[in-house]
Structure formats: C-alpha cells, structure tokens
C-alpha cells in the first residue's frame, strides 16, 4: 500500500498544480472572457481614435455607421452560418453570391422603368424591386452550384477539405463570370446622385440610405428569425444543423432542408450585396472583401447560430468603422481578422456556440 501512496500523492499534487493553472486558463477561455475581450477591443479602438484627434461626434458617427455595416455583414453571415451548420463546411463562395446579388440587381434595375427618387433616399422604387427579384435569381444560382458541385460530393461523403476546395472553385467561377459579364470597372446604381448626410442629435451625421440599409437589414433578420423559429422548415433546418443523421431518422428530408438553406442564405446574401453596393459602389471583389468579416462574424457568434452571427456582425462592423479613425480604412478586413484571431484563441466555439467539441 505504501508503495502506491507516493505516486498517488505525486499525481495528486500535480493535479492540484494544474488546477490552479487550468482555472486561469479556463477563465480566460470562457465566453465571458471573450465578451470582455471584445468589448475591451472596442473601447481601445475608441480611445485610439480619440488620441488620433477624432472628436466625440466623429466617433459616435463611426459607431453608428459600424452598426449599419454590421447590418450588411450580418445578412451575409447568417447565410454563411446556416450553410456551415447544415452542410458542415466553410462556403468560400458566399462572397461571390453577395457580389452576384449586387450586380444582378443592377442589371434588373436597368430593365425596370425609372421611378421618381424616394426622398430623402437616393434611389427609386426600381432598386427595391430589383433587389426583391435578384434574391430568387441568386438563390437559383446557388441551387445550381449545389446540384452540380456539392451534392455529388455530399453523396460521396467527401471530406470537409474537398467541400471547401469545391466552394473555392465555385467562388472563382462565379467571380470570373461576373468579370466577364459586367467587366472589371466600378459601377454605381445611381452615378453622380448626391446623397447628403442628415444631421441627427449629438451631431451624428448619417445618410438616409444608410438608415434604410439598416432598417431593411433588421427587417430581413427578423423575418429570418421568424422563419427559423416559427415554421416547420425552420425547425427542420435547426434540427439538421444540430444532428443531420438524427434529423434524417426522424423523417426530415435533408435534401429539401439543404435546398431551403441555400435559398435562404443566397437571398440574404443577395440583399446584403445590394445594400453594400448602395452604401459604396459595385466592384467584382466586393464580396470577397466581405468574406473575411462574414466568416469572422459567423465564428464569433458560434457556427450554426444565426442570432450569434448578427451580434458578431455588429461588433465587427463597429470595430471596422471605428478603426478607420486611427488607421488606414483599407485595413478594415484586417481588423475583422484580428477579432477573428482573438475569438479563435480564446473561445473557438464563439460567443453563443455549443461548448466543447
């Protein structure tokens, strides 16, 4: 007995040692810590901006713009996180769907009769109609890509890496199609149309279009939430994301769920593209630039969790905009990347993801 005591004791002491370290590690890797870290990052960005000579109203405006950019990012990120949840692979082609939505709406709008400008916004009814029409069009493209590329791989139980490679191929295919059809130059929905900023209380300057973009994003996100929470298809989607095999056993037609996931994701991506195009301009790489913030938002919120993706998107949108007060705005996606690394290091499951793997 006494011979066993010593090793036991040693193990016991070592375990005690480890618990102290583990406790700190666990505390650092908890969700609260992640939330605090992200909040501190935002605060640090604010302070850095103030140090660089940005006034309080500048920073407030940037924050409000950040929330609006977050609205756009969240539209893409919801689709990304749903596809990730249901199909279990990172869809690198999602950015191309965003671009496709923006350009598709551009072409559709050019066929529609131009209505009067809806003051105080800079666009007319035709753009909203074009956006509504572009959403099913992009969904159709996503369904075709799924049928041609992803479904055969799914049938074969291909590895995650092959699916990711396939999505990369799809991304470059769609992007080259966009280049071929619309060319590499910038496009504007309404070239040269002025869009003066409104003066809000606290000296915040916001364009009416930005408010529209944000409100629309909120409406779409709310509709998505209703769809996921209140309809049978939404329930089936969540079940499939949770456990595909069990969902199938329980009589859920997974192929149909997957098709609807693509439709939902692509529609939201298309709407996000139109809004992004309205807020800045149309360029073939616009979706690719949004890809990193979208992934960061999806991972930050916990993969497969649409509500989390929205929170992540808003955090990233604010961080990107506020950071432009002290570094070159071109680094926006880089800021998203830094936040992504913070999340991955502290808590890869994200703010609202399922704990443990």
């Amino acid at each position, binding site marked *: 007995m006494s011979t066993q005591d010593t090793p036991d004791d040693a193990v016991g002491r070592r375990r005690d040692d480890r618990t102290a370290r583990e406790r700190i590690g666990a505390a650092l890797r908890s969700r609260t810590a992640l939330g605090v870290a992200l909040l501190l990052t935002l605060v640090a960005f604010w302070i850095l901006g103030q140090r660089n000579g940005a006034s309080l109203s500048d920073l407030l405006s940037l924050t409000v713009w950040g929330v609006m950019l977050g609205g756009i990012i969240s539209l893409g990120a919801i689709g990304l996180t749903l596809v990730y949840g249901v199909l279990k692979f990172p869809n*690198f082609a999602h950015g191309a769907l965003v671009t496709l939505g923006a350009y598709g709406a551009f072409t559709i709008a050019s066929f529609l009769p131009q209505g009067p400008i809806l003051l105080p916004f800079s666009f007319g009814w035709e753009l909203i109609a074009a956006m509504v029409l572009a959403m099913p069009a992009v969904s159709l493209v996503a369904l075709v890509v799924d049928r041609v590329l992803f479904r055969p791989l799914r049938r074969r139980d291909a590895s995650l890496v092959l699916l990711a*490679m396939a999505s990369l191929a799809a991304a470059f295919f769609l992007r080259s199609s966009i280049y071929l059809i619309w060319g590499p130059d910038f496009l504007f929905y309404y070239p040269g149309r002025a869009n003066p900023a409104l003066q809000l209380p606290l000296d915040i300057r916001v364009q009416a279009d930005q408010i529209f973009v944000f409100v629309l994003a909120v409406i779409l996100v709310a509709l998505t939430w209703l769809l996921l929470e209140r309809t049978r298809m939404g329930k089936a989607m969540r079940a499939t994301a949770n456990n595909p095999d069990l969902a199938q056993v329980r009589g859920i037609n997974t192929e149909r769920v997957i098709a609807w996931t693509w439709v939902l994701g692509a529609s939201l991506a298309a709407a996000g593209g139109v809004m992004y195009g309205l807020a800045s301009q149309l360029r073939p790489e616009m979706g690719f630039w949004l890809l990193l913030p979208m992934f960061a938002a999806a991972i930050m919120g916990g993969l497969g969790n649409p509500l989390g993706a929205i929170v992540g998107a808003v955090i990233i949108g604010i961080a990107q905009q506020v950071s432009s007060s002290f570094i070159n705005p071109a680094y926006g996606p880089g800021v998203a990347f830094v936040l992504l*690394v913070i999340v991955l290091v502290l808590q890869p499951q994200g703010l609202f993801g399922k704990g443990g793997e």
Partner: protein
Amino acid sequence: MEPVDLARASFLFFPLALLGMLVLPGRPALRLLLAVVAAAIVAVVLPIWLPRGILTYLVSFSTMAGIYAILSLGLNSQWGLTGHVNFGVAGFFAVGAFTSALFTTKMPEGALAAYSQQAFGLEWPFLAGVVMAGIVAAIVGFLISIPVLRLRTDFLAIATLGIAEVIRFIFQNERWLANGPQPMRGIPRPLDCLFADPACSWLPQGVVNWLAPLSPRDYVFFYLIVVALVLTVVYLALERISRSPWGRMQRAVRDEENSAAMNGKNVTARRIESFVVGSFIMGVAGAIYAHYVVSIDYSHFNPLFATFIVWVMLMLGGSGNNKGAILGAFAVWGVWSGAAFVIDMASPALQAISPDLPSRGAYLRWMLVAILLAGIVLFRPQGILRERKKVSDFMPKGD
C-alpha cells in the same frame, strides 16, 4: 549550328539533365548516364529545330512553371504531409519576395528617394537574400501557427486566407516598408553581367567569347538553371524528409492524430514544424520570383495567382506526391498559358458574342482554372499521381 544556338544549348543542358534524372527509370548510375546523354541530344536539337522566339518563350514558361513548382512543393509539405489547409500561400510568397527584394536592393538615394521608399536596402548577394526570404517567411509562419494550428482544419483555412489578405494589405498600404502601392523596382538579377556587353570582369576570356553572341534578353536561359537548381534541392530535401522518421511521424499525425498522440508524439509541435517548413519553401519561391521579374508590387500576390492556382496544381498533380506537385505545376501553368493563345485566336468569335468580351478574355482563363479545380475535386481528388505510401525499402513490395 550558329554560335548563338550553341551557347543557348549549353544553358539548356543542365535543366534538361535534371529533368531526365527526375523522369527516367532505372538505377541511379544508369539514370545519370541516360539523363546526361538524352539532355545533350535534346539541348542541341531544340535550338536547331525550334525558332528562336519560341525557344525563348518555352524557357521563360519553364522558369515560371518551375517557380510555381517550388510553391506547390511547399504547399505539399504542409497539405500533403501533415494535412494543413493553407489558403494563404500568397501571403508567404509575398513575404519571401519582398524580403529578398529589401535585402538585395540598394536604398534609393537622391532624386529617386522622392519616388521610391523602402524600409532598408542592404545590397546583400542573391543567395543571402533567398535564404533571408525563407527565414522571414518561416518566422511569419511560426508566429501565425501558434494561435491557429491548434484549431480545426476549417478554421485554419479561413485564418490563413485572412493572413494572406492582411499581408497583401500591408504591402499595398505601407509606403515606408516596400514602396506600396507602387512597385518595388530594380531587384538585382544574379550574375546578370554574364549577358552584359562588357561581361563580368572575373570571367575567363574563353567563357566571355562563348557567351558573346547572347544578348541580355537571353538571361532567362541562365535563370532557368537557377530555378532548376533550387527546385532540385527542395525536391530532394522533401523526398528525404518524407521518408525520414520525422516524415512518417507527420503522416501519422495527419492520418491518426489521436493514436499518434497516444504513442507519445507531440502533435502540436509536429504540426507547427511542418507548417514552418512549408512557409520557408514558399518564402524561397517568393525570392526566386522577385529576382526573376525584377519589379514586384502587391497585386502580384492576389489569391488567384498565388494561392488558388497553386492548390489546383497540387490537387491535379497529386497531393502527397512530390513528383505530382511538380507535374501539376507544369501542367496547370501550361493550361493557363495555352489558354491565352486560344482565347487570343478566338477573339473574333468572342467579338461576335459581345463587343466587350475580347478585352475581358483574361477572365475566361480564371473560369477555366476554376472548372479544372471543380473537375479534379469531383472526379479525381487524389490527382494524377497518387501518394506513395511506401516509406521504407524494407517493407514487402506489392502495396
């Protein structure tokens, strides 16, 4: 045979002999003999048989394909050996290229300094620049690998894609570092005095006479030898590595991570090591590229040219197979370059479809490469040459 062709043939001999060693069958001694004889014959026949312009094109094609082959080998040492999904090849390629450029160029002075800025310019020799490129890329790879390599494959793919973009943004926006977004010009070419009019002073007269008929435009004939040498060194090193105990350990980590860990292997350390090795090779490839094109800027390192196409090369050639990586590089670069001619010839037809199309013909090549990758993923994910799992000569044959 004219002296020009003879001099060109002498430059072709060495890369051809190395190629022969790579593809010919048989025992090493016999292979060497065969390769030397075959290379001598082909080196003489090619300049006689082909018009000079076409030969120059073929040589510059092979140089570029060789650089891509080095990249593809680097990726293979990460993906093929250990299973890292690195979608950020472009980042390490860029770090290598700009590092070597900074170490070997001269700091701009006088009037030039107003147009061109860089962090430093040390005027080191070419080889030192290449080594530094590898080392700095390896350091970058190491720093990145610490937070990221513990993660799942899909997170690694996203994170590396982000890293490459961030690196490209830095070279695009930081003027003080490497003159971004303007190109960094005047990266010295190694031994380019060989082809200058008063040739290098240290050259013996016989060699000077031999090279006299060649013009500076023929420099690429010499650079092909440089690329072939680097490619050979990288290839041999990787072949040796993948058969070493360390390489077998890497495969174990890739295929059965848990059982490797249970057998006392430090999985995280092994994964970091192979990521660093691959980053080093990609950095070297970047240096070789920078000294070849002489002037580099951030746009060279976009995800298409420097990440996506390298993945297509490796997937086509065969992941895990070093010969496959080289084969894939030449095949895909052949498709890419050949498509340019085809699209050029088809431009009247494109004109008929839409007047805008011919000027956008370049994007058809993207589409082609994307379709190629989709085809590989769908129909032959293991590539042309399969991975050779046999890692020991003492194991029974017939695997």
